[in-house]
């Protein structure tokens, strides 16, 4: 031990007294308790990453789970995974909240004599379930969604071992029609893999490519890459959208064919005919013209679909001419009772345009034969339950009371089942009606696997010790099965579910697979036949006598309702409607006028099956004969899913559109149909203020979301002036002009010691609007990374959201019209067929001459020498002047102590320890993820070098499926961001006229115009 001299002792004494005094000053004193025995793989402050698989939707993206001190705090895409290649959507980003949900069961519960759920022990609960199964195994049914590959096999073995009466798989948004159509046309019962990479013409028949599509992240990435103007001077991929509503996908399309809902199949056949007539396939498909395409003439189709014959011929010709065209099948919202025919027609079109085998890969299904998610089987099960033929119902990975239409009678039939067992990890409508709940771990706590597509096997691995006394679904099932009878136990696999999983992965390098998240191989095309004769397309059948066709649109975040429990997904506004925490009904402006309603007036929708009441959202971008209601809301259980959810059971938030659908809506294959109703719509006379985050889509020609035509980009001057509006576009960021920033900083810190050192860094970002679809994955990533408060419905209604990053949605260039009156919401400027929608992500611009900085009286916000507009929360006294003076309005004020007082336990466990939790009364805003810069700086320092380009990825940049964001050092002329920001034509600074000298350079969207039929 070194000797301590008198001086040193005094220094130490002074320092410790000072430290003690300083500790006494802080607002909240919290103690850090060190490990008694340090776990081997945990270094405090250093994250540990685990490869796993996202279980939020069937796409099956690979994720890397970031854990800090053994707590998962964020999910990021797994770069090795072939489906998402390192990117992750909003649903995936938010899924970390599932583990820390206040709705979770803390242990097994059973219903007591008084009919209330009370805690019990695992032994008692399993004994009770096993006894009930033993009594009459034939009257036992298993109902559930997709539990993963091995777990699904285990269920089959469980059913076989116990002699249970059967198993039904039910997934609300399954793709049964596509599978059936593929079997019909190509003879292989599998979902084809659609590959857009390198495509130059894509027609989406309502699959909703970027939101509820087949593989949204993968397709968004492929779409963006195939139309990058830097590598495709001709504009690259053109996207044609077919649908009745300006959806998120339609907003990013180049041409929107406003077809009647349900007429997608007819349109696909007409396009196939037009393509053949224009020479597609060089006569190979001439036979089809007299076969299935005999009646698919453009004029007849135009009448049936409402798409002009000219457009059909033009796009048919474009398809024939295209180098690599592909057509995507109809999605859930337009899945009518004739959905198989429509999907088959799209597959036929793909065959005609030569996409099958290259961009449409029909691979043989792999692994254990998976049960089909047949809605017909579910209806049969409900009948059995109603008839009292089911004594025990085991429900897993599904919330049928919510997601099955009320008119199917599931809830009533459930009452006739003697013992309902739920494996839900968090309380939902079904679990609260169960007799016994054997709570499952969440995905982050459990082992599992998935086979999202042929060739891809993906692992799920636990990343923290289960928070509560829960048991993995597989283990609970094994325990129940073994308790039923010794015979059953003998037939079930030995060991735990994990042993079974490893056994199932024999033949692969399990440890390597754990590291890389799975085993990935390219899928090979297996189909050889083509049976066009079986393609039968018919007009959809509707029930109800209303004038409007109901479109039950899968909500991009809430999905089949499973997302509603996650506050981040409730909090982020729908990218198109801009509504959060509520459901709404979209009608056209003309329809709203006809019904005599305005924004927020409550409509009553009444179908043969049921009725719901939702607030109306009139918009220009929807057909007059359609009313669209998003799925996912209307829960009555859940802290966040339902309203006033202080306890678990609350009041429904919004309406559940499934309740309008008939119980027997099935397509030809027995899959679930959603496009079946023409409800009666009437105004209730009541009004509800919608939690609307943006009600003005008129950008007033201000420099916020710029666009330019392809011709202008190619340098044709007149086109530039014509389409670019009267205002100038700012010259791109010029590193030479950066000296002015430096000078500015020096004036700022004129008092000597702080004078800006010539830092080698000036952090900057470029935001490519041409790649942005508005999918909001970046926003979700920002919420999770930066501990942003989720403010809830009431505060959202007051527009007090705390998002550091928002996406402004503009319809065209807008016009600076001046209109008076007390109009809260001006009329939507959308028009049918117009896809000039600009999604402009707005985050702190880290201005070189930031208006927020000089006005702060206490220097709580200042400019650091690396060009960051930094915020010192401890100094802030909350005058809010900075927010007033910020022209971009990206500063957010903490009106409450959100995390301390409004977050129910255990949500605080998911806070990112690298980011300060802001208290009541301080301002906050985007930091360019300064904690990530600091982490990279430490690494660079250890390596004795400058931070290399690409070492810092902001959370938004990391998440973005289409690489909108580029972040880096503007002082390095070779950095990606310097190159991207130097785009001479597309670059501009938001609100350039204010001369704020932002560090964020936007790249204007490129308007590619409608698809050209003949070469120009």
């Amino acid at each position, binding site marked *: 031990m070194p000797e301590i001299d008198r001086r040193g002792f005094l220094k130490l004494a002074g320092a410790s007294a000072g430290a003690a005094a300083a500790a006494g000053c802080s607002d909240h004193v919290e103690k850090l308790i060190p490990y008694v025995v340090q776990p081997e793989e945990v270094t405090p402050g250093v994250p540990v990453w685990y490869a796993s698989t996202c279980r939020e939707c069937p796409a099956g993206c690979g994720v890397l789970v970031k854990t800090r001190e053994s707590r998962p705090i964020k999910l990021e895409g797994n770069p090795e995974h072939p489906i998402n290649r390192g990117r992750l959507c909003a649903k995936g980003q938010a899924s970390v909240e599932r583990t820390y949900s206040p709705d979770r069961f803390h242990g097994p519960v059973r219903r007591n004599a008084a009919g209330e759920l009370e805690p019990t022990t695992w032994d008692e609960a399993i004994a009770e379930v096993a006894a009930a199964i033993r009594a009459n195994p034939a009257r036992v049914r298993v109902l559930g969604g997709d539990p993963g590959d091995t777990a699904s096999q285990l269920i089959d073995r469980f059913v076989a071992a116990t002699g249970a009466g059967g198993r039904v798989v039910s997934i609300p948004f399954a793709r049964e029609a596509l599978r059936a159509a593929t079997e019909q046309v190509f003879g292989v019962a599998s979902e084809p893999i659609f590959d857009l990479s390198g495509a130059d013409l894509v027609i989406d028949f309502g699959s909703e490519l970027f939101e509820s599509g087949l593989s949204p992240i993968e397709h968004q990435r492929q779409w963006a890459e195939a139309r990058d103007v830097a590598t495709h001077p001709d504009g690259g991929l053109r996207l044609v959208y077919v649908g009745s509503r300006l959806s998120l996908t339609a907003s990013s399309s180049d041409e929107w064919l406003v077809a009647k809902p349900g007429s997608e199949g007819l349109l696909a056949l007409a396009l196939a005919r037009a393509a053949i007539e224009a020479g597609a396939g060089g006569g190979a498909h001439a036979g089809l013209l007299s076969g299935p395409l005999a009646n698919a003439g453009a004029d007849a189709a135009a009448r049936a679909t409402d798409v002009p014959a000219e457009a059909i011929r033009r796009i048919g010709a474009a398809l024939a001419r295209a180098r690599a065209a592909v057509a995507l099948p109809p999605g859930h919202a337009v899945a009518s009772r004739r959905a198989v025919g429509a999907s088959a027609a799209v597959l036929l079109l793909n065959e005609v345009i030569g996409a099958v085998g290259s961009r449409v890969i029909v691979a043989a299904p792999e692994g254990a034969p998976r049960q089909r998610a047949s809605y017909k089987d579910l209806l049969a099960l409900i009948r059995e339950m109603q008839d009292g033929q089911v004594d025990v119902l085991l429900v897993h990975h599904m919330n049928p009371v919510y997601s099955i239409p009320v008119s199917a009678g599931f809830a009533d039939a459930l009452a006739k089942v003697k013992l309902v067992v739920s494996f839900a990890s968090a309380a939902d409508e079904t679990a609260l009606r169960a007799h016994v709940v054997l709570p499952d771990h969440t995905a982050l706590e459990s082992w599992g696997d998935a086979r999202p597509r042929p060739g891809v096997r993906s692992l799920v691995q636990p990343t923290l010790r289960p928070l509560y006394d829960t048991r993995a679904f597989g283990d609970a099932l094994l325990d129940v099965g073994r308790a039923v009878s010794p015979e059953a136990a003998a037939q079930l696999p030995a060991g735990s579910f994990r042993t079974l999983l490893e056994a199932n992965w024999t033949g692969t390098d399990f440890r390597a697979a754990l590291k890389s998240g799975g085993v990935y191989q390219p899928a090979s095309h297996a189909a050889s036949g083509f049976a066009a004769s079986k393609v039968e397309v018919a007009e959809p059948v509707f029930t109800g006598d209303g004038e409007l066709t109901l479109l039950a649109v899968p909500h991009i975040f809430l999905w089949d309702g499973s997302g509603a429990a996650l506050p981040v997904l409730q909090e982020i506004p729908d990218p198109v409607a801009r509504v959060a925490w509520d459901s709404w009904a979209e009608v056209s402006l003309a329809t709203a006028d006809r019904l005599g309603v305005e924004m927020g007036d409550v409509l009553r929708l009444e179908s043969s099956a049921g009725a719901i009441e939702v607030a109306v959202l009139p918009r220009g971008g929807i057909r007059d004969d359609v009313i669209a209601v998003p799925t996912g809301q209307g829960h009555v259980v859940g802290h966040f899913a339902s309203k006033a959810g202080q306890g678990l059971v609350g009041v429904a938030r919004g309406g559940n559109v499934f309740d309008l659908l008939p119980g027997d809506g099935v397509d030809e294959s027995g899959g679930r149909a959603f496009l079946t109703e023409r409800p009666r719509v009437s105004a209730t006379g009541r009004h509800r203020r919608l939690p609307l985050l*943006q*009600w*003005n*889509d*008129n*950008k*007033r*020609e*201000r420099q*916020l979301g710029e666009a330019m035509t392809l011709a202008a980009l190619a340098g044709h001057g007149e086109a530039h002036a014509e389409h670019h509006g009267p205002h100038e576009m700012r010259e791109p960021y010029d590193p030479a002009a950066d000296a002015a920033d430096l000078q500015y900083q020096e004036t700022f810190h004129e008092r000597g010691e702080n004078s800006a050192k010539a830092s080698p860094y000036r952090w900057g970002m470029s935001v490519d609007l041409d790649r942005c679809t508005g999918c909001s994955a970046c926003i979700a990533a920002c919420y999770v990374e930066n501990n942003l408060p989720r403010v809830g419905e009431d*505060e959202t209604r*007051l*527009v*007090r*959201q705390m998002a550091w990053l*928002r996406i*402004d*949605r*503009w319809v065209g260039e*807008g016009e*600076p019209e*001046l209109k*008076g*009156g*007390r109009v*809260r919401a001006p009329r939507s400027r959308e028009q049918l067929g117009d896809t000039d929608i600009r999604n402009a992500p*707005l985050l702190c611009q880290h201005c070189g001459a930031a*208006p927020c900085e*000089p*006005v*702060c*009286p*206490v*220097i709580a916000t200042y400019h650091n020498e690396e060009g960051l507009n930094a915020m010192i929360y401890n*100094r*802030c*006294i*909350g*005058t*809010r*002047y900075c*927010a*007033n*003076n910020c*022209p*971009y*309005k990206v500063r*957010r*004020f*903490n*009106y*409450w*102590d959100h995390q301390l007082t409004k977050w129910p336990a255990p949500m605080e466990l998911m806070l990112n320890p690298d980011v300060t939790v802001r208290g*009541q*009364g*301080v*301002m906050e805003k985007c930091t360019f993820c300064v904690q990530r810069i600091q982490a990279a700086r430490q690494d660079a320092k250890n390596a004795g070098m400058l931070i290399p380009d690409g070492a810092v990825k902001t959370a938004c940049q990391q998440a973005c499926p289409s690489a909108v964001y580029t972040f880096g050092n503007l002082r390095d002329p070779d950095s990606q961001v310097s190159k991207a920001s130097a785009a001479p034509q597309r670059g501009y600074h938001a*609100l350039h*006229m*204010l001369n704020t000298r932002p560090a964020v350079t936007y790249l204007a969207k490129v308007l590619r115009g409608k698809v050209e039929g003949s070469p120009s």
Partner: protein
Amino acid sequence: MTPPPALSAVPTPEAAPAPGDSKINRDLLRVMEGASPGYFLLLGATVLVVTAAALTWIYQIYIGLGVAGYTHPVFWGVYIVTFVFWVGIAHAGTLISAILYLFRAKWRNAINRSAEAMTVMAVMTAGMFLGIHVGRIWKAYFILPYPNQRGLWVNFRSPLEWDTFAISTYATISIVFLYIGLIPDLAIARDRFAGWRRLLYTALALGWQGTSRQWKAHTRSVLHLSGLATPLVLSVHSVVSWDFAMSIVPGWHATIFAPYFVAGAIFSGFAMVLTVMIPVRRIFGLEEYITDYHFENMARFILLTSLIVGYAYVTEYFVAWYSGVEAEQTSFWLRAFGPYWFSTWTMIVCNVVFPQLFWFKRLRTHVPTLFVVSTFVNIGMWFERYVIIITGLSREYDPAVWGVYTPTWAELTILAGSFAFFAMLFLLFLKIFPVIAIAEVKELAIHDRAHGAHGAH
């Protein structure tokens, strides 16, 4: 300006009773004596409202500023509106005391004490709103520049920092000014009262004997303080206006703001003096001392400043149009015809239209008209600040985040509390200090007698 009428009530020296018991003394000190049930009722009512507002404030500090109606993008609301309003009210006092003193406008003598007292009270009320407004009042002292071991310093480039200095300087000068003026009167009160009052006035009168040496020093200090205070009249509200003018918010960023705000402040200050003094004169029977002549002169000031304010309104709109800046034009258009049209037209009618009645001498000297118009001016001036702050912020550069702000119960309670607080202080002042400057009235009376009421100087 018409010369002031002679004070008929001034007794001749022959008939004058012993010093300390003149009619002026008796009349003016009578205000401080006793208190009717009506007084206590009024005082009780104000205390009640102040208590409600105080509790609301405590609740707001405890639970968070979210109880106010703030929304993205309107980060400043009724609290700042009311702050600016009370700073404006605080202007008449110094104007009357300092500037009119320097110009030897004798008619000020009857009203200067009440105006100075109002200044101090208004500044106190306004100062509180800075605390009510900020998000973390427990750290609000960070705004004061003082050497500290935390290495914190303030940003002297921030208009809010200038504000801190302007308001605290103004408060200091106003208090000193009021106190210096009070000393001779406190001595009179000391000689007249007994009990705790005597002790209080003895202490406060600082041993005032009325010697010529003391009078000389007193007159000198008042003169010098007037000289010091005069630039403050112009600077305080100029600085407050820069809170807005220095920003880039459309509708705020205007060079006309400093003179515009100063004129508005004097306008509202005189209106408040009228609104308060008309009932006081009536209740305490001070018609002999505060005459219609005084009121008329204040009405002239109101008319003049109303014209300046009206001109500023026109200029603002003209510049918005002439600048060609679309954001400015839109902001001003929506100011008049957007969701806040009501506040805008209230402001214009109250501040520009009603004061035009004062072109007519009959209305200028008609006390009920004076009272009604001055009350409307007070309302109009509150709305002026509401219009500037709220409409400016609600329609800024990014139309995606345009918003509508509505005040909540908490803000309205605290707003009501501010008026009650002001009234409470004034009621207490009436009973504790002479509300009319006795010594100055006497001086005037003696002066008038010596030189004749219309005497030439």
